[in-house]
């Protein structure tokens, strides 16, 4: 079985895995990193959204081989120690989460959006397709707007 080395949340990691094994299962089943959630397996619900070299990606449809020698960041790697990322803090301030299952993916998608677009419009926010079955969308929207303001203030 081939071996792949990549960095996960700042830690260099090597796994034995078939080349086509989806990164979601490498993270969850082999490495015990469970922040990225399974919701569909076909990049529709986007509950697994994480970052690959700083950009949003969906580990459920990304083979481990594509992650070799790259930086993977999951929700667990977003905060700096005890200090939450401004998007996480906005999520707390707006009391966004209900069941919480989609929220790691929502947050990682929002962080990616704000990196690309520090001042997103409503339409920009609506381009995020992550499913929230509890329907917390309005608070997600408000949290992204708050985070944009907070990040702008520095």
């Amino acid at each position, binding site marked *: *079985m081939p071996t792949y080395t990549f960095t996960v949340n700042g830690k260099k990691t090597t796994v034995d895995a*078939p080349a086509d*094994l*989806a990164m*979601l*299962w*490498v993270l*969850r*089943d*082999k490495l015990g990193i*469970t*922040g*990225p*959630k*399974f*919701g*569909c*397996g*076909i990049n*529709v*619900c986007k*509950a697994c959204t994480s970052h690959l070299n700083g950009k949003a990606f969906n580990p459920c449809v990304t083979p481990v081989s594509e992650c070799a020698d790259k930086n993977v960041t*999951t*929700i*667990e790697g*977003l*905060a700096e120690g005890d200090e*939450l990322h401004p998007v*996480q803090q906005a*999520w*707390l*301030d707006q*009391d*966004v*989460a*209900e*069941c*919480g*299952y*989609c*929220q*790691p993916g929502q*947050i990682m998608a929002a962080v990616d959006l704000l990196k690309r677009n520090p001042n997103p419009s*409503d339409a920009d*926010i*609506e381009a*995020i*397709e*992550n*499913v*929230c*079955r*509890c*329907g*917390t*969308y*309005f*608070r*997600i*929207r408000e949290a992204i707007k708050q985070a944009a303001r907070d990040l702008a203030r520095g």
Partner: protein
Amino acid sequence: MAEETRDQAGIGRRRLLTYLVAAPTLTVAARWGLGAEAAHAAIPSSPRPSELYDVGDLYKQACEPTKNLVLLEVAQDGDAWLWLHRMEVGQGITTACAMLVAEELDLPLSRVHVPMRDADPALLYNQLTGGSTAMRTVYDPIRQAAAEARARMVAAAAHQWDIAAEQLSTRDGMVVADDGRTATYASLAVAAADPGLSPTGVTPKSAAEFRVIGKPAGRIDARKMVTGQLEYTLDLNVVPDAKPCLVHRPPTIQGRPLRVRNDAEVRAMPGVIDIAVIKTGVAILAETFGQAWDAKKVLRVDWSAGTVDGLSNEDIFAKLEAATVPLAVPGGLLDTIDAEFRFAPVSHAPLETNSAIADVRRDHAEIWSGLQTPIFAQQVIAEELGLPQDAVKVHVVQSGGAFGRRLFHDGAMEAARASKAFGKPVKLMWTRVDDMRHGRMRGPSFHRVRATLAAGQVASYEHRITQTKTDFSHGLGELITAKLSAGAGNYTYAQSFFNMMVECPYNFGVVTEVLHEPEDIILNTAAWRSVYSAMVRGAEELVVDQIAARLGKDAYKFRREYLKHENVRAVLDKVALEGRWGRTMPRGHAQGIALHVEHRSSCAFLVEIDATDPRRPRVYRATIAADVGRPINPLGIEAQMISGLTDGISSTLRAGLHIRDGLPLEGSYSQSHFARQKDSPRDVKVFVMPPSREEPGGVGELPVPAAVGAIACAYARATGTWPRHFPINFEVDFDPFPTD
């Protein structure tokens, strides 16, 4: 006698239940709210059964004998731990319950922890989460338990300092003496547990003393959620050698596996550990879910026929229509408004699919899963495994949504079967396709409505609903059967449930609402958030608009005039005012207004829709008001209203299941169109009304029927049509996934 030996637990419960329902009819007489008002000019309707006695009342009675079995501990660090006998699925009850404890114990909210309690048969009926009953049933018992804990802290300090308890008070997790001395709960925790103490003043606070209850509080588990630390079932590492397990499923609903055709081929695949035929399919055990999934695609299995082979939505609707109980008032003679509605089936589709960890050994078993009825799960899983009930330990795990789905334990039962078959612990997961096609759903329903107008009034309102059988076998159904002292099957308790839930809130003269659930269409069903009310009341609100139009009245003023209860008028007035009812709207846009009364609560929705393209309508603004009796956490109530709004958008406009030849075509969120951010309003305002009663009403299911009604009415007004089929835009706009 033989029966008694066979099923000790069951018989015991029944006896208790007989006592329960025979004795206290006292709550039945208590009329909710302010009573029927002088009915303006409308023809008053007699109270509906649910106005006098609803599902929450029934469940409260069922919990009465064990209501004090609250597991509350003050640990040696002074923190409080409440092992909650209800399940958190996103509705925010752990936060609300933590607030009750914080209030009565005078402890900061951050120092109250609320894990789920394991299945505990001693609780009898008192461990079911559903029907928006949680806060109604635990409000008094948890406050009482926390008040007792506080009194014990005071008594321990009084003893320690040798002063009268009356000279002591509590704040911030400390006992404080008049003379300024303080003792933390941490320092008193051991002494306070002394059975010899006789605490005084164990009465919970009066509402005037509340400092926590009624104030907005963020979710206590939010930080864990946003950092990825909150562990759902499959995130747990409680059985390190439990391996990933998927189940390959039949091509039609409730088909059963007969034979695996390519056993050797699948076993030879990388990562595959074992395969086994279980009742519902073929279980695959592998090193990773990815490898189990690959094997699932390759497996070839012979299946028995399912329960609805060859049937599609259209056939089912035709059967439902044919089985509909006739209307009483004849048509054609009087001034009537007739309407028929069809609501397609819809999946609960919680984002976390059915899942469980099971470790089944020869003489004991241990299960972890999200379970709304864990005692029931424990009973039937033990029976299935041939183990005594107390040899099966069932842990309840907070889950990623439920919407009624986790009233049943389908994942846990399969995990138990698979673990037994493999002789190994398993982590079992349903794929999304499994979940949508073989998971439970709200069954399709057909509705026939006739409103009769006479002398400018509504003289009668008849509603007949025929729905495929809703599975209530999870426990509460048994309560109702016992209440009726009859074994008349699902039909009887479905109708009883219906009567205890659905309430026409208007004075429409003679009101009859009759449910029929034919037995011969077997789907995988479970109550879906708001059960019958989303459809029955949603359709009713649309008819209300139609009646108002016929009588030449404004939809808001008409509702106001015909409402039975004054406190409901208040929420209606609130949204009309705050949402600027009646303002001029652009062409193709419209407002819709609707309300709902249930669970001893009421709410009103005013939405604005852009239906310029009727096939792509967008709800872009919503104003919501809710009167929930005693609000515990306004922020949580607001969240439930927003969430209910989204469910209304999904189920009214686009989300559903097309059953085609015995199987739903939909297999993911790309096919069953639950709302996304782009479908969600940019402007939402929620008003939580001030306390209207001492006790809390139900919240979780309350908003859905009003949301459905308001959205349907807005769509109707914007497009000049009267929608009759829901969801309104429901094409098969995708290529279904293959079945094998």
